[in-house]
């Protein structure tokens, strides 16, 4: 991926990606899992994995979804089959950086994320700290994720992870 963007272009793209991430966080904070797959391309890839794995070159994902059908299957499982206590989430996304754009227009970017989780009758806690490693493509409907790797630092998942990062 060559970084062949002028500072102005990079700034404009960064703003566009920040807008994208704001909508992404808004959907997940509303627990609107059904709209979550729409942030991806039809063949979009989504993975949540520990930094420990990335550093060791390990391929596993806590969540490993290959394509929008599989993302929709996960959304449906969250809504209809998985059993869990009610919770609220806040996704805080910042430090967006555009790393480059390739000849086909795929944009490589990154951002930090923090997820706050609130269980009923309990204090709000930091659930996960991590980094999005993204590839965006421009479609007729605006930017879409061709891939989003959510690489988390948080070494122990508190109990379990129900909703996507």
């Amino acid at each position, binding site marked *: 991926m060559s970084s062949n963007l002028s500072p102005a272009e990079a700034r404009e793209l960064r703003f566009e990606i920040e807008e994208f991430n704001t909508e992404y966080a808004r959907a997940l904070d509303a627990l609107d899992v059904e709209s979550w797959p729409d942030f991806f391309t039809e063949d979009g890839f989504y993975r949540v994995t520990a930094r420990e794995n990335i550093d060791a070159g390990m391929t596993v*994902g806590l969540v490993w979804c290959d394509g929008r059908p599989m993302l929709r299957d996960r959304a449906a499982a969250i809504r209809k089959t998985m059993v869990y206590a009610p919770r609220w989430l806040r996704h805080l996304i910042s430090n967006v950086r555009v790393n480059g754009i390739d000849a086909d227009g795929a944009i490589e970017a990154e951002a930090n994320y923090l997820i706050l989780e609130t269980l009923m009758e309990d204090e709000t806690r930091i659930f996960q700290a991590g980094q999005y490693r993204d590839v965006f493509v421009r479609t007729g409907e605006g930017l879409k994720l061709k891939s989003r790797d959510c690489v988390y630092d948080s070494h122990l998942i508190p109990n379990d992870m129900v909703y996507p990062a």
Partner: protein
Amino acid sequence: MDTMDGNTELRWPEEGLTHIPDWIYTSDEIFARERERIFLGPTWNFIALEAELPRPGDFKRSYVGDVPVVVTRDADGAIHAFENRCAHRGLEFCRALRGNASEFICPYHQWMYDLTGRLKAVPFRRGDRGKGGMPPGFDMNDHGPRRLNIATRHGVVFASFSDDVEPLDEYLGPETLEHFDVVFANRKLKVLGFYRNRLNGNWKLYHENLKDPYHATLLHVYLATFRLMVAGQKSAMFVSGKGRHATAASAKDDSAEIGKDTAAEMKNAFRDDMALEDQEFIRFVPEFDSPWTVTMQTIWPNLIVQRELNTLGIRHIVPRGPHAMDMYWTMFGYEDDDADMARHRLKQGNLMGPSGYLGVDDNEAIRFVQDGFRHSVSDRGIVMLDPENEGGTDTLISEASIRSLYRHYREVMDL
């Protein structure tokens, strides 16, 4: 009840094994006794897969019970484990999760240990210019972290603090070995990565969860909805090793009819309005010499071996006091997997783990159980299903292997 206050005698309910008192999950006194008699006692505890330590000098941090240990492979290829504690001032000296080293040096005073855990150097042992230093009789051979006994089977490494533990194959027993070997004996493992989560439940609840096939078709709506497991499918529980270890086995059968009565009992566990868009996800690719598509093994006291369709892994239980446990998951495939199979395993990994379609259900249920124990005034639960059996059984609607575990537990714990 959180403590034993007001219940000075740890007396098991008179009804016997069908009734389990809450205090085995909540009492600090019980936890201390478990540590001494079970984890530090005559048991084999999982500590590593050899595939995690392929080269001489490779090491990892691990645990026996809640005791931190270092696992190493020495220059000759032998596996060792020793307490992660400096013999001098007690520092937990190995801080990296894993790595490669020729020796370990405690940072505080630079005492040095070799890959077998033996103390090899003490700076200023003879003092400085004739002053200070260790007493003349100090012998490095008398000091060093406690070293553990090691046993391996097909690349799975177990350790014991006890010299009285029986040989590993006897400890596991034939019924456990049979299904264990299906996963480990024939092909070389390839580690795919790790998950870690902290569960707010007593460590024994994880064993019980997998010795309780009754929940599988009721809690796990996903299993029932996509016919991965329903009552009436072929299933069995195999128990060995003094009732401690169990293998929950089932065979996915897409043609199996679900009878009207079965369907009625499971009415809240079905979603007839759901279909998978990605059907490939739950495909089983035959690859094992076994009639079972699923075997979940609970190996006392700290190992789960998961073979669920084509997703494979082990779970290492690290108890953290009576109310919590850490789960360290190592997911793996085989060295000879082709690209399609490698991808299939990663994909099917979504079933299990801290974000798995089934994993979340179990983790939540275990937490809810612990919440019940901690906060209520009632003081016992019941495990009465399938009363004619204790240990193995061939019905899902059974708690027979929970009872066989607790017969053994009570003996070891004097309860």
